């Protein structure tokens, strides 16, 4: 018998959440969702969880298994077993309020999806037939189109854990679905809005969303695609864009990152408040002899690096 430890919560009965253990004889091939259903149907009918398609299509059954978000129907229980304890820990998704047991409130999640205006914007008169796309054009939005809004990425996003103003990976992947759409006419307006605080530049590159995403949507990569479009469209008046531009300039001129110029150029020379924020850490490092060399030494064979930049039109 294996032990399934489930985080229970029912505010009508008890204020705090607690873990309850269920003993289950795991059958080969059973998914975690099968196990949750078995517990509900045969051991405790009050256990509450969401489910529908059982085929990783509807995105309803997202939970945390052993601390990481997953679709319960997509993972076989035996592969989730902690071999030392012969157990699986199941919790509700993170970064959302819990309604009951494994059911969370997606209200904020959907509000953020709405915020990125998830619909095609095209004011021009429609052609006689459909607005067609070439296979190459469709490829740019193929991955983000696969998102099933399960909330797994949102649950484990490291930024959302500390800042709920961040739009989050799911909404930003959805935004890429339209930023990258050849039929959409609001690209500039979209990337301007997405470059505001809480948008693309607040993504911390932790890769959790790539790891948890059950589909090819993989939000981090979609966020980076929006960044590239924002930079191409000249939306440069923010720290994230300035940071990327300064970084590229540094590598172009020396092959390496110049850590002395990057923070100042990222803040922007007229951003007095931002520049002042750099002073304490700069002073601390200066006093300890940790400041990078004043004369930035380039890498060897710099001409070859410059040639590559030129060849790629950068």
């Amino acid at each position, binding site marked *: 018998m294996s032990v399934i430890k489930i985080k229970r919560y029912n505010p009508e009965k008890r204020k705090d959440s607690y873990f309850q253990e269920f003993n289950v004889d795991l059958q080969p091939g059973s998914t975690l969702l099968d196990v949750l259903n078995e517990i509900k149907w045969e051991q405790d009918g009050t256990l509450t969880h969401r489910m529908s398609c059982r085929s990783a299509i509807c995105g309803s059954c997202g939970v945390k298994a*052993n*601390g*990481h978000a997953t679709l319960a129907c997509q993972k076989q229980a035996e592969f989730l077993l902690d071999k030392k304890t012969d157990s699986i820990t199941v919790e509700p998704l993170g970064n959302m309020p819990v309604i009951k047991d494994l059911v969370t409130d997606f209200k904020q999640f959907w509000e953020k999806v709405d915020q990125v205006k998830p619909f095609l914007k095209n004011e021009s008169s429609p052609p006689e037939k459909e607005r067609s796309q070439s296979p190459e054009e469709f490829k740019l939005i193929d991955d983000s189109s696969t998102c099933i809004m399960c909330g797994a990425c949102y649950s484990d996003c*490291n*930024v959302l854990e*500390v*800042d709920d103003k*961040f739009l989050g990976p799911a909404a930003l992947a959805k935004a890429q679905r339209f930023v990258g759409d050849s039929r959409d006419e609001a690209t500039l307006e979209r990337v301007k809005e997405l470059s505001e*605080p809480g948008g693309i*530049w*607040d*993504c*911390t*590159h*932790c*890769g*959790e969303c*790539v*790891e948890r995403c059950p589909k090819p949507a993989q939000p981090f990569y979609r966020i*980076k695609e929006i*960044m*590239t479009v924002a*930079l191409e469209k000249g939306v440069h008046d*923010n*720290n*994230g864009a300035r*940071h*990327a*531009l300064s*970084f*590229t300039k*540094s*590598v172009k001129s020396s*092959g*390496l*990152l110049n*850590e002395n110029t990057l*923070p100042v150029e*990222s*803040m922007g020379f007229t951003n007095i408040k931002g520049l002042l*924020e750099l002073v*304490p*850490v700069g002073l*601390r*490092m200066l006093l*300890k*002899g*940790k400041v*990078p*060399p004043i004369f930035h030494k380039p*890498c*060897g064979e710099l001409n*070859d*690096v410059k*040639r*590559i*930049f030129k*060849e*790629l039109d*950068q």
Partner: protein
Amino acid sequence: MKFALYTGCVARGATRELMVSTMKTADALGIDFVEMKSAACCGAGVLSEQSPILADALNARTISQAAKQDLDMITICSTCQGNLKKTECKLDSDEEYREKINHVLKDGGHQYTTGKTKIKHFANILATPEGLKLLKEKMKRPLTGLKVAAFYGCYVLRPSGLSDFEDPDNPTGLEDIFSALGATPVFYDGRTKCCGFPIVMMNKEASHKMAGNALVDAIESGADVVVTGCPLCHLSLDSYQPEIDQLRQKGYEIPILHLPQLVALALGHSPRELDMHKHIVSVKELEVKLS
């Protein structure tokens, strides 16, 4: 053992103590590191925001430089490791893209060949059975009684398909190294999370909260010291530590070491020889514990 050493930019800049301790560790273990002086920046996931193909071309050039010397590559930065592996994966899985990149590299005399060079983080050669055996053999000062918490750095763990750690959601490689050195590993939830460094210029408050949550978790789990394999994490956890509210409110402070510093301590070097006095958070209590 001979490897091409890809130092990365930060080990030559703000965390030169990482370079010092890496070379001392390699010397003591009898590992021959050939520094890749003509390699360019890995792009840190930032260059690719501007141009993904540019970042891949520069990384392909770097990998082909190691291949030319018939050497596998060692990185000492989680971020470099992750970005080089991403390029490797893209080139290995897409022949057309690989040819495009090789066309760009051609005039510089470089060509990327699939599978010719392995890219490994220093931790991943030390955390093998051979590496752990070597550490035990060469150890001069066991770190007995020292409670050490690992901080992995996102890029060596995620995406898991590119990670060399056996179970990137629950890795034990760094902890295996700590145990081999006689120290006591401290396991805590924050060890695989983000340090917040990539957004310190864009959302400082969130960045510091991320670092603070991980450090409070490590301290309250009993750690004497946090050890990282990423110099960017080191900057976030050490250089910015005095500004982190969660720590200030609780009156907490914890020294942060680079992985090669901890290893070199056990191999007999003194904290001063490893430039630990350059850290923002004092290592004095650590020195007392070790004495």
